[in-house]
């Protein structure tokens, strides 16, 4: 009997991430549906507020992060929405640990979220013309937000998988948990703008992301087996 040498969980996670990215690239939901919808959401606020430039500049980055959070949740939840029980069974029987699968999915989500944030940023800048003092911190904040939101969204997606109301239950679970990410993102740039150190808020983001990833990896097996 031929016995195959199973790859390491890290390699399996990488393969899962690669497959998820290929599936996303093929479907194009984030690029063609969620990102334009996010841009429309950013556009609605200036239309409602009117041409009050100082006000728009003041709320610009905050609005950007709110839209990233709300629409980013949809980005992370879209994976589990297209899962069939047959495909999940195939992956489980392939011997891929639940934590490796969750890590691969969350990593793919983080990449897609980073793309989503990058595409929305010029829209927010054009519409709100915010003060971009300390913009050099922006890539770090974007990366931490994407990483944290991806972990929390993947965890919520796994928890609500199979529930009839998962499309609304998922965001309800993620949004409160992702609040520290939102605060960290907005306050880091505010701190730099007012000449304060941004490390405390970056630490908030790092801690939230780390907790999200730990919770995802440690609970993956139990959540899957009890589903």
């Amino acid at each position, binding site marked *: *009997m*031929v016995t*195959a*040498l*199973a*790859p390491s969980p890290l390699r*399996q996670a990488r*393969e*899962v991430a690669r*497959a998820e990215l*290929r*599936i996303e690239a*093929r*479907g194009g939901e984030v690029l063609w549906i969620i990102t334009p919808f996010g841009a429309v959401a950013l556009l609605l606020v200036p239309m409602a507020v009117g041409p009050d430039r100082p006000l728009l500049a003041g709320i610009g980055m905050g609005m950007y992060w709110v839209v990233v959070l709300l629409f980013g949740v949809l980005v992370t939840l879209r994976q589990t929405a*297209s899962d*069939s*029980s*047959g*495909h999940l*069974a*195939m*992956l*489980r*029987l*392939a*011997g*891929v*640990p639940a934590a490796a699968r969750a890590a691969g999915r969350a990593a793919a989500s983080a990449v897609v979220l980073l793309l989503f944030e990058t595409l929305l940023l010029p829209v927010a800048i054009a519409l709100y013309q915010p003060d971009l003092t300390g913009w050099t911190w922006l890539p770090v904040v974007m990366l931490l937000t994407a990483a944290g939101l991806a972990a929390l969204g993947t965890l919520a997606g796994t928890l609500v998988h199979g529930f009839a109301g998962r499309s609304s239950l998922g965001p309800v679970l993620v949004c409160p948990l992702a609040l520290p990410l939102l605060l960290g993102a907005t306050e880091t740039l505010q701190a730099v703008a007012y000449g304060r150190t941004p490390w405390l808020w970056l630490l908030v983001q790092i801690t939230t992301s780390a907790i999200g990833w730990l919770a995802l990896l440690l609970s993956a097996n139990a959540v899957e*087996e009890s589903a």
Partner: protein
Amino acid sequence: MVTVAALGVDLGRTPVLRGLDLVVGAGEVVGILGPNGSGKSTLLRVLSTLLPPTTGGGAVLGARLNSAAVHGVRPSIGLVGHESGLHPRLTLLENLRYLAVLTGRPEEQAREALDVAGLTRAAGRRAEQCSQGMRRRADLARILVTEPSLLLLDEPHAALDRSSFGLVDLVVQRVRARDGGVVIVSHDSPRLESLADRLLELDAGRLVPVGSGMVAGGPRW
């Protein structure tokens, strides 16, 4: 390969299997007949270790059901169920390559399996663009990639045209030739008879030799 005793499964509050005993030896092909809703698919999910039994127990490939040891034997179990295991947005070849890489098999095995399944020309087609019969053939090709020790087939001939029935035979024979065990559930008695060494019937949640049971709950016409 499989030894289960007094196995019971409830789905919600509905008892589906009750006091079920089954032994499948190495190199043995067991066919299980039963009408729709008799619990055939549920039994396969339990044997695949994906669904824990509610009562009773046993072992699959040496791993006790309801224990963490089942994770270790899962890569040696092949399941072709009602629902395709392929991801709809990946091509047939990508699906099989993905499986090969995840299970530590050479990637070339994916193309070879598709060739054997007669899907060479459809290899680059997304699963969602394939007919149900083609997806079923690709699912059977998955088994050729992973070479499991225990094969579980749920209505394997469903959606297949007559010319593809030979693929089911081939997959079963390959597992048997490696001294693996096979459990096939179906309501197609003639096809099962030609494949199985032993035929059983699922009757009111229990397995009985064919002919001895009175399959309950069937239509009256």
